[in-house]
């Protein structure tokens, strides 16, 4: 929950919902962009994501640093698990945006066993 996950906006959805498809290390998921309403990202921009919501725009170099930091903290797998879990209820009807299958349909995560 407290992870800041870097990703690249690869697709913007039209309409009011302010959703985009973000690529995090090859995994593509829908991410909410509404918290960046004052400075909406464009396709190709990098963002930091918290609990499925993009919270800041960052540079590509910062995104690389952040991924490296997550690795150093031993949290990269948790972060990827979180990203794969975004939009899990939509996986019944896969779209181009959901390229990786849900890993958590059982509802129990490795993350929960961390402590």
């Amino acid at each position, binding site marked *: *929950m407290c992870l800041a996950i870097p990703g690249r906006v690869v697709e913007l959805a039209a309409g009011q919902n302010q959703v985009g498809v973000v690529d995090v290390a090859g995994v593509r998921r829908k991410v909410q962009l509404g918290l960046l*309403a004052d400075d909406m990202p464009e396709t190709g921009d990098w963002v930091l994501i918290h*609990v499925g*919501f993009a919270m800041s725009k960052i540079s590509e170099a910062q995104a690389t640093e952040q991924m490296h930091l997550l690795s*150093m903290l031993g949290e990269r797998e948790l972060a990827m698990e979180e990203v794969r*879990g975004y939009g899990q209820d939509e996986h019944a009807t896969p779209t181009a945006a959901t390229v990786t299958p849900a890993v958590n349909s059982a*509802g129990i995560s490795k993350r929960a066993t961390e*402590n």
Partner: protein
Amino acid sequence: MRYVDEFRDPELITKAAEEIRRLADPARHYRIMEVCGGHTHAIYRFGLKDILPENIDLIHGPGCPVCVLPMGRIDDGLSIAKESNRIFAAFGDMMRVPGAHGSPLEHKARGVDVRIVYSPADALQMARKNPDKEVIFFAIGFETTAPSTALTLMAAKAEDIRNFSVFCNHVTIIPAIRAILDSPDMRLDGFIGPGHVSTVIGCRPYEWIAKTEGKPVVTSGFEPLDLLQSIVMLLRQLESGQAKVENQYKRVVPWEGNRAALQAMAETMELRPYFEWRGLGFISQSALRIREKYSHWDAERRYPVPETRVTDPKSAQCGEVLKGVLKPHQCKLFGKECTPEHPIGALMVSAEGSCAAYYNYEHRKSLVTEIASVA
């Protein structure tokens, strides 16, 4: 130093460490609090204590939302969700956190429909997909996650999704810092301000700490070099007798914060008169509840809440550890009754709690040393 080869800039790390040694007055003892649980984790993981001179103590603050959540709130949330047509949706971090009557995972084993979500938006989507069920999202976190809950509430209202509600446990960091500063046994010299929380609230809310309390604050990034640079900035202020708010994490933290996020919080949430923090007790105006205009989506207004109170045993000295009076291992229960496997006090509950971090890195290390010396 364990992870030195992984650091991106070993030379800069060495320089920062030298600068810290030069700035630290050997006649003084420094107590610097890092407020955020993410910083606590990074400090242990990178072995930063081994780099710092002995007269600089890092005190681990209250910034782990899972740790400070009173146990009774978990019981209350689960008690609402127990009815047959309801779904209890929460982040994975919550699943093993014990309530007095068991954790969410144990409730799942007993047949309660407990599900992990990774985003509040997905809890709302669960409600859209299950119109015959009532989805209760167990919201938790500081200002880092509160805006996401806020936007989700706004979406629920805009679409009039009636089978969704939020059991709100969001807390705000500033009153917790105030409570720590107000306690008579407080001995802090300065603060490493949180990184991601500051992305939302900006740096202004810390100004009173510098102006009124005379303690410097530096908001910091999470890399080893970020944390060391923040300590350098704090020591420079302390050396020159200054107290101001500085932003080390400028690459992510805007001084004014994130306006859209703050607006979403203000639209949907208001301060509670008081809220209990595990380890710190009741703190006034320290948590958020859902505004009346969103009452339909407020689980606390929609369902009866038992208001379970569970007090930690008096022997657990979480409050003293939070205030920097005791080190984690100086608590009477540390590593004996209270371990990450069987947490008794707040700070052992999540991996980012200071006692759990201390246990996982320092305590286990010392046990290995003991065993090695016996052999």
